[in-house]
């Protein structure tokens, strides 16, 4: 099973919203994956298949072994779907 990290600055509020919406999109796509929400510094030390985060935090994570996709509007299921499609 693929492992996806939803990343924000604190690993509390923002990434949790992102994780909920990623899970909903995966559900719609019929994909099974393990989604975790973490803060940016923990994420840099974790291994995963895909990281989903904002453009700003993506810069901090440059060089991470995982694929990184950027989502700007965490509420926009369509944007999240486009970001995840072909990657999960």
């Amino acid at each position, binding site marked *: 099973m693929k492992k996806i990290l939803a990343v924000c*600055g604190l690993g509390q509020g923002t990434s949790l919203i992102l994780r909920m919406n990623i899970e909903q999109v995966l559900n719609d796509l019929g994909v099974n994956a393990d989604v975790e929400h973490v803060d940016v510094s923990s994420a840099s030390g974790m291994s995963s298949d895909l990281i989903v985060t904002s453009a*700003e935090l993506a810069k901090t994570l440059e060089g991470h072994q995982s694929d990184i996709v950027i989502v700007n509007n965490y509420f926009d299921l369509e944007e999240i779907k486009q970001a995840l499609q072909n990657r999960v």
Partner: protein
Amino acid sequence: MDLLQLETVELDRVAKDAIDAIRLAGDLLVQANKVTSEYVDAMVKNYIEIGPYIVIAPNIAIPHARPENGVQETGISLLRLSDPIEFGHESNDPVKLICAIAGTDQSSHLEMLKGISQVLGNKAKLETILKTNEKKDIVELFRS
């Protein structure tokens, strides 16, 4: 208890910058005895140190800190600015709505964020929040 109360909503305030706006939204939570003033300081510190990632959707910022930074009771506040403000976010600036959130633990955080997501992620509901002159309309949206 409702997630949002009349006393934690404020419409069309003027804020001079992002930090001022976060403080104003945080002060609504302090006045309602949901958080201590240390929590507001922690939200500001997070914004300064980690950056504008809290602007999670166009025109919407959700400043927050950790439960141990001074949360007394789970709750949110909603501040609508009279004039939008730049938070420094690449694509979601300027910010018009600040929804400060405070959760006492992980599970209350989750419930609260689901509620917020269902309201602020819904275009029609968001439109109401941006346009209404009645605080009670906004409280009502968070009730269902």
